[in-house]
């Protein structure tokens, strides 16, 4: 499924390496592409997409599997990277669409294990000296330059498709929030909820039916015109969501990016059973889509959601 493009890429890399003999630095130009290469489709004329994926809670493997199917069925090429520190105007230059599928946090000083729903524990749990264990400490990865690079990329006429927990990145970057147009507040654990199309006139939602999905129901704030909202999530059991006390690892999300979410502030507001789950808008000469579903391959491949994703990619790339 990947040979033709891989071969091309390798041929190009082979040109780079001999050309840059004599400097380890030069070799890095080739190396930087080690994590960016096409897996699906023929790229000769088709618009190119770059996916930035993977964070502590979201394994690159399932994201790649899910998106490979999407792009394979669309007949479009897609490149993947997990190297968040490489995001730049230069990295985006060859692309028409940037898919962002990771949150805003990195954990360079380590972490113990997965999140609570896996039943995992901190190493200090139950020990006589829990205070001796340093707390997990998250940092933001996105720099101002990187936020601006994405903003400029879209303003220049390209597309941004932000998926799932990526709306958290707006917590760490005002530029990113400006182009994404919203920010995530959090989500309850994985449980079933209904996704309703609230604007059936948009090219992205044409012929898409409401559906039930078992996923993390993200609650988001949308900053731009409410008519751009496409999807609404609702817990049909009436279960509500209150962000409440932040989990320790969420403290790093505290910077105030325009909406006053303080570092250790608890959000006591009951957000109810309904959430904003998707939107689409124009930004400069470009386009932006956010859809919040995506914690599992099964959710990503929910048939109606697949339709939405296909429509979204086509709309972002201005294909018919």
């Amino acid at each position, binding site marked *: 499924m*990947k040979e033709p493009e891989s071969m*091309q890429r*390798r041929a*190009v*890399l082979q*040109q*780079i390496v001999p*050309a*840059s003999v004599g*400097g*380890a*630095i*030069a070799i*890095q130009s080739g*190396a*930087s592409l*080690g*994590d*960016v*290469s096409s897996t699906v489709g023929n*790229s000769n004329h088709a618009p*190119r997409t770059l996916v930035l994926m*993977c*964070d*502590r809670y*979201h*394994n*690159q*493997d*399932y*994201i*790649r*599997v*899910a998106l*490979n199917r999407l792009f394979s069925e669309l007949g479009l090429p897609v490149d*993947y990277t*997990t*190297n968040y*520190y*490489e995001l730049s105007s230069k*990295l985006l*230059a*060859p692309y028409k669409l940037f898919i962002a599928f990771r949150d805003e946090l990195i*954990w*360079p000083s*380590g*972490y*113990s*294990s*997965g999140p609570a729903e*896996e039943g*995992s524990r901190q190493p200090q749990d139950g020990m006589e000296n829990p205070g001796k264990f340093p707390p997990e400490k998250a940092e933001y990865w996105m720099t101002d330059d990187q936020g601006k690079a994405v903003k400029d990329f879209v303003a*220049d*006429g*390209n*597309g941004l498709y932000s998926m799932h927990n990526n709306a958290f990145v707006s917590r760490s970057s005002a530029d990113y929030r400006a182009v994404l147009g919203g920010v995530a507040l959090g989500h309850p654990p994985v449980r079933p909820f209904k996704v309703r199309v609230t604007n059936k006139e948009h090219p992205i939602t044409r012929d898409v039916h409401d559906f039930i999905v078992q996923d993390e129901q993200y609650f988001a704030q949308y900053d731009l015109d409410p008519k751009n909202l496409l999807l609404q999530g609702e817990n049909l059991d009436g279960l509500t969501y209150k962000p409440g006390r932040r989990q320790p690892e969420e403290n790093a999300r505290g910077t105030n990016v325009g909406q006053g979410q303080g570092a250790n502030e608890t959000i006591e507001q009951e957000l109810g059973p309904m959430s904003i789950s998707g939107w689409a808008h124009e930004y400069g000469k470009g386009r932006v889509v956010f859809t919040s579903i*995506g914690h*599992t*391959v*099964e959710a990503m491949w929910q048939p109606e959601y697949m339709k939405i994703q296909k429509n979204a990619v086509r709309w972002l790339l201005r294909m018919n």
Partner: protein
Amino acid sequence: MGNAKKTSRRHFLRNAAAIAVAGAVESGALPASQVPAASPGKLNGRPRTLALVGDYAHNCDAIRVGLDRLFKELELPIDYTTNYYDLSKSLLEPYQLFVCFRDNYIFPNGRNFPANRSQGAAAASGGGAYAAAEHWITEEQGQAVKDFVTAGNGLYSFHSSCFISRSSENYRDVQGGVGLNHPPLRPFKVRVVNKEHPVTQGVEDFMVADEQHYTIYDKDPKNILLHSENLDGLTFEATLRDPKEGGPEASGPPRNLGTTSISGWAHEFGSGRVVFTAIGHTIHAMWEPEYLKLQKNAVKWLLKMPS
């Protein structure tokens, strides 16, 4: 219609090459976090490492955090890729060390587990769950790794990478062994069985809670550096067999492999060197102080640096 960005990928790459030649590279390749800000120039002449990381059961985020610390403390640069299909002779060419930290499987048809399944959830690996698995490595890729080492470079194979030998004879040839699977995460003792080797210098035996991988080592037993033993006397019953007995998925009735496993080795291969160490399912296992010491020794030995 986005025409402003018609620059093709090929042009982009050529431009990158041109800039590289000019010597004014602003490289995206080098993890900024890995380069001491004060000494970017020191990169010149320093050996380079490429790590292929991440699989279904191992989130590349945790692996990166684990290895970032190792290479930062070694003051060596490291590049990462998760794109297994890119592994090739030309990909490896700029490097002196290839770190492999992923298993032999891909699941192009999907698997229905939560996104974050990565750490501490490895128990649920029954045979049926892997029905849709495919092996990613091609013999050409196995050959590329073999040739890379033969030519004088290093291979550091971590943890689940021992399973790659199940699906590639070339990879097995250079790695020198193969994985038979592991019990769930539980504590075991790691013993240094060869204290004379540069890789184990100054390393004490240690306890770790990890997946105790059971492996077969094909070469001279004197190259074995580490044994692991479950001190509670818990044994491991393997259904997987040596692939020589029936291919990558060779299996049979449970066979008791006892409490003790082969957990690490080091050997020369051609003009190059190979190390395998089995510990590595969590960041805290990767950072166990004695294990971190051992990893540092291993990287230095593989790169033929003074220890």
